[in-house]
């Protein structure tokens, strides 16, 4: 056990910090805001491209994919440095964290060049089409159909909750290619450009605000998709799905730890009950970092422990939820203001600054619902960590 990182990791941190200090976009440049998780303002595109070209976007990747073959601990301090300055990693988080990552793991060389690199350099943006009206937690029951017709797949069906789809250039779409196989075995993954005829996107508001439009319904009506857009092997989509979300998970807990630490800075306890909740928040943040760093150490040795990462997601997402509820209560009537100002001004992250307490609390439910709900995580932990029998 050690409280600090070794000198080489700290050197890496210092190098990145110096890069940020020298290159961060100025306040004057960053006026234009993002409207959705796949809408990236021009300045943010330039910034992400600079990170990519300098090997600082995803340092764990090889140089041709925006990295410098950094170790997992170096990737960790890289994210810490971004967050310390309240800088978004990307304005197209699914594109960077899930879609490009899936393509780099499962895609062909041609797909990496044609799709992954442009997504990482934000020449295009991407959205994730997994969920359907009838397939949420039970993702494997998805019904959007794709039938091979010569050198094209013909796709029919519907996705929902597809964050940012209306601003995205391409959708990583999970489709059923073998309706007769057991449900996990008949799924495939297709890259579907959103300008393909037959694709209809209908964005709609979130509970936060009518104008907070990120969700989409996406309809596919005889959409013809070139067969070369198949990602991974035919009917091997379940494997890709686990991998796609797996990418996100190794460091997902860190985003909760960072949010908790932001809450520790922004939450103003007023009375003894607030202070009590505040202390729990501080403890949750510390515990999450401790447990997360142990998970990182395991990952650094190449051990995959997906179920243990569920513990971190549960702990982190629920801690953020409790703390933001308490911060809202402690703000009292002032928390009614929407949009509000609950974070210090940070020109690279104005969304956090202008989010009222209700918004911050409500957004915490993305953590407990998306990417496997808390209930599903509990069942996973019970069966795969605690060894309890399946029902």
């Amino acid at each position, binding site marked *: *056990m*050690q*409280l*600090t*990182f070794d000198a080489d990791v700290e050197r890496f941190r210092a190098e990145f910090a110096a890069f940020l200090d020298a290159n961060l976009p100025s306040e004057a440049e960053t006026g234009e805001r993002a409207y959705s998780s796949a809408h990236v303002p021009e300045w943010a595109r330039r910034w992400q491209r600079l990170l990519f070209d300098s090997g600082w976007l995803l340092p764990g990747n090889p140089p041709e994919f925006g990295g410098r073959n950094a170790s997992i*601990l170096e990737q960790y301090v890289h994210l810490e440095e971004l967050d310390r300055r309240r800088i978004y990693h990307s304005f197209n988080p699914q594109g960077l964290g899930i879609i490009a990552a899936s393509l780099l793991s499962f895609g062909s060389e041609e797909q990496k060049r044609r799709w992954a690199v442009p997504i990482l350099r934000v020449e295009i943006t991407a959205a994730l089409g997994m969920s359907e009206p009838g397939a949420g937690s039970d993702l494997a029951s998805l019904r959007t159909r794709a039938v091979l017709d010569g050198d094209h797949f013909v796709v029919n069906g519907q996705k929902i909750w597809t964050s940012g789809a209306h601003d995205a250039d391409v959708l990583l779409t999970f489709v059923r290619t073998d309706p007769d196989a057991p449900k996990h075995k008949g799924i495939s993954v297709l890259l579907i450009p959103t300008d393909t005829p037959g694709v209809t996107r209908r964005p709609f508001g979130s509970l936060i605000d009518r104008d907070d439009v990120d969700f989409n319904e996406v309809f596919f009506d005889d959409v013809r998709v070139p067969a070369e857009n198949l990602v991974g092997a035919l009917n091997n989509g379940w494997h890709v799905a686990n991998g796609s979300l797996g990418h996100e998970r190794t460091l997902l807990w860190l985003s909760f730890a960072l949010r908790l630490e932001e809450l*520790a*800075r922004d939450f103003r*306890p007023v009375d*003894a009950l607030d*202070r*009590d909740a*505040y*202390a*729990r928040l*501080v*403890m*949750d943040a*510390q*515990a999450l*970092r*401790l*447990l997360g*760093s*142990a998970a*990182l*150490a*395991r990952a650094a040795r190449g051990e995959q422990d997906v179920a243990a990462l569920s*513990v971190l997601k*549960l*702990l982190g997402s629920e801690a953020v939820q409790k703390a933001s509820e308490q911060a809202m209560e402690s703000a009292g009537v002032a928390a009614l203001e929407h949009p509000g100002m609950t974070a210090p001004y940070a020109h690279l992250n104005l969304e956090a600054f202008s989010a009222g307490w209700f918004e911050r609390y409500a957004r915490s439910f993305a953590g407990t619902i998306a990417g496997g709900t808390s*209930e599903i995580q*509990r*069942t996973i*932990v*019970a*069966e795969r*960590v*605690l*060894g*309890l*029998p*399946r*029902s």
Partner: protein
Amino acid sequence: MLFEFDSDQRLWQKTIHEVLVKECPPALIRGIADEGADPAPLWRVYADLGWTELTEPSEAVELAIVLEELGWATDPTPYLATMTWFTPLAPGVADGGQTGSAVLDGVSARRDRDGWVLSGVARHVLDGDRADRLAVVTDAGVFAVPAADVRATRVDVFDPTLHIAEVSLPGVRVGDDARTGADPRAARDLALTGLALTIVGACRRVLELTLDHVRTREQFGAPIGSFQAVKHKAVDMHVALERARALAYFAALTIAADDPRRRLAASMAKAAAGECQSVVFRNGLQLFGAMGFTWENDLQFALKRAVAGELLLGGAAEHRALIAEEYRAAHV
């Protein structure tokens, strides 16, 4: 930060665990609780194995490993009091085989021509009735006092193998050389961390027993552990335990490194352990059904040790008040 046992630490834990499985089985605990058996031979086993020599602050993580395992085994000896109450307040005073504890409040020291006179009464002193020596904290400093000089009476408590005593010092005379020079503020951190680890170990035992139970007990034609309501309660126990365990070892690590966060970390460890025992007690006893509600079930020992730990040296809420204050003073 890299928060993982290294291979030596893993081996150490395994060794301790194996010794306790053999030397401190539930039958021994039950013998002490029901028949008044003497735990002294067990204490000598610990001393012979060198566990009582982990007195350097730099060995805090190794000590922590022992303490967690002892919590798991519901240790019936005065190890916790000796190593985490007495030793930090009176470093170098006792030799390996001796036991100790501490009187943390209730005693005042008066100076006269011949030295010091210590007077007062302290309630709820851990192992106050069976420690060879006591470290007595007063406004004038900490004094090491042989047990023979004080009057101690064991008090009945719900944990049948825990020793709690009322200790009175009716004008005990000591010389200047009895003053240990220790800083009670720093000593507090190890005492809190030790209790936190005890609770964590006891909670781990409750979870293990509960998991065994729900895997084997059948109702409605299925193991009750296959029911989702049962699974989710078990997971909440596990998550609370992981959190508390991480914070307890973090506290030990800050002591070993003499890191400035050690005071905050010790309170976080104690508070998290307290929160953990609350979930673990509630869900553990609930999932056992009536079977857990009996004197015969060994579950009781770990349950009681966990709650007893929460009640000593300030509960979770008290420490959370301290955490909020410390953290905001340092960061905001």
